[in-house]
């Protein structure tokens, strides 16, 4: 009974809304310490500016368990035409909310939900990103670049351990590296925190001490320490998500890009225009322009030997055309 009256209240609220379109974004975490969310928010802001809709950004905090109630709360207000949230941990929550509030439109990015009529979801092909990084790492560690050594070891520094990391990103990175030389060994470390650069530095130093010469950092703020460690020892880093080579051009050789800003902007504009296909999901990778690589970066061109750059372009195109399956 209460439930029904509550929903009625929501309906009344929706009915009383003005005409302006409004979107709420519930960030699964905090903007601080997570560059991908910063990109997402920027993309959303651009879309809001171009299309002219209201945008509300809510930071869900680091307590994973509080994210779902936040989405429910946003839906319950009935003030928003679309509620957006992120990550592969949220499909169940989004589905639950969609069932609780059948009139609330929901979008999930960076994760795939069941195709309920009021959900649109968009996932990224993270494995393509990791595979690219793995292939690049393999080429560097087998090269005669000044920071590369004879040990066939590449590193991966993760902020924490989560299914997408263990199930897709880590294996794809390893596959990428092994596609260059199957004897390449992966050394994996996890800091247990996305915001502890000092721990990142110590872990990276331990990896470098074991003969690793290039590290992929998927570790948020923690990864900053890896850059410092690698630059002190003259070794290399691969960045993820956005291009921050300029931070340490000698050390960060390349970044794999996840154009989350483009994706969210596209989704929001489509939703505003009324042509976002709710009830479906999409999966974006290199082909869709969501995954990229810093081929054009002048420092990349300057610091990475031409043969590696050419080979990388080949790998990139093969992935794009589906000739390579990064997952095996």
């Amino acid at each position, binding site marked *: 009974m209460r439930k029904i009256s509550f929903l009625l209240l929501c309906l009344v609220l929706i009915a009383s809304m003005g005409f302006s379109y409004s979107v709420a974004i519930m960030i699964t975490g905090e903007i601080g310490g997570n560059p991908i969310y910063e990109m997402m928010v920027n993309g959303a802001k651009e879309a809001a500016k171009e299309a002219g809709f209201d945008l509300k950004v809510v930071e869900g905090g680091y307590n994973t368990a509080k994210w779902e109630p936040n989405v429910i709360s946003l839906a319950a207000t009935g003030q928003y035409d679309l509620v957006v949230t992120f990550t592969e941990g949220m499909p169940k929550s989004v589905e639950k909310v969609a069932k609780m509030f059948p009139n609330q439109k929901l979008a999930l990015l960076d994760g795939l939900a069941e195709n309920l009529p009021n959900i649109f979801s968009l996932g990224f092909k993270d494995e393509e990103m990791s595979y690219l990084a793995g292939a690049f790492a393999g080429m560097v560690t087998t090269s005669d670049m000044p920071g590369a050594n004879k040990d066939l070891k590449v590193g991966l520094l993760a902020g924490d351990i989560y299914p997408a990391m263990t199930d897709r990103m880590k294996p794809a990175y390893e596959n990428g590296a092994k596609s260059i030389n199957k004897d390449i060994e992966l050394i994996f470390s996890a800091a247990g925190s996305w915001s502890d650069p000092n721990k990142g530095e110590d872990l990276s*130093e331990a990896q470098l001490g074991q003969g690793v010469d290039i590290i992929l950092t998927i570790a948020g703020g923690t990864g900053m320490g890896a850059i410092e460690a690698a630059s002190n020892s003259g070794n290399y880093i691969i960045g993820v998500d956005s291009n921050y080579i300029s931070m340490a051009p000698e050390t960060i050789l390349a970044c794999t890009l996840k154009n989350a800003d483009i994706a969210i902007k596209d989704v929001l504009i489509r939703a505003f225009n009324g042509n976002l296909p709710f009830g479906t999901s999409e999966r974006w990778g290199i082909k869709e322009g969501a995954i990229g690589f810093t081929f054009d970066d002048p420092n990349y061109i300057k610091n990475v030997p031409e043969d590696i750059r050419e080979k990388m372009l080949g790998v990139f195109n093969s992935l794009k055309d589906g000739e390579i399956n990064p997952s095996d």
Partner: protein
Amino acid sequence: MIGDFLHTTIAMMTPILWAALGGLFTQLGGMLNIGLEGMMLVSAFSSLYTAANTGSLLLGILVGISSSMLLAAIMGYVSLNLKANVFVVGLATNLFASGITVFLSSNLCGTKGTLYFQNAPELSEIKIPGIENIPILGDLLSGYDILDYLVFLAVIICFIIIFKTPYGFHLRSVGKNYRASVSVGISVYKQRFGSFLISGFFAGIGGAALSLPIKTFVGGMTNGRGWIALVAVILGRGNPVGVLMASIIFGAASALSNLFQATTDISPKLLLTVPFLVTLAIMIFYSVKRKKVNAQ
């Protein structure tokens, strides 16, 4: 490998040791300083921000120390003058620090995210000529930044302050038996407030030692180091040398855990428990031994 291990141990422990030296003073005055974490965090931000904008490391460190001491003074004022529970005030300090640093970061630097100041002056590593190339010893003694070296001097200075100067003497007396201290005209308030300020001073350097060498600030980057410092304080039993030993134990265990991450297939998560388990084991070992020695 041994060299790397020793080097990491020292580099790892110094920020903790700085903060622990701070916590030692409040402990001697009879109070548990839960706010070390917050003091470190505030200083990590303010020292780096200042250093990056003025180009002066010294100024950065000084501002870091000042901000941490300001927080310590608030803690002292609220707990001593307003008689609030020092534990709750400590938790408030940590909460405040985690909020204010991100708030300032977003207002001053336009981002709540990772702050990296490429052009900030670097707290660079000092290579000691001659020693630098000796195996193991070179790793152990050379190649740290100035704050790493200074912390050992600080241990000695703290030792002198605590055991040789009237201030330390009075502070210890307050911690042991404040009624007796009052009866000879010692002000408990002044001693304790002073210990908060000193606490802030050292925790401030600890915070700067986190952010300056990597020119990076991330919200919450202290990640529990203030708590570990507190553990070191209690294990150190009121003596800076004891605090040093406790910090070394923790540093070595952490270095070991990092090494295992790079050399074994054991789950990284389980390896993260190594520093805590080792510290616990050593603590139990000493307690048992103490009891056994007494029993003989």
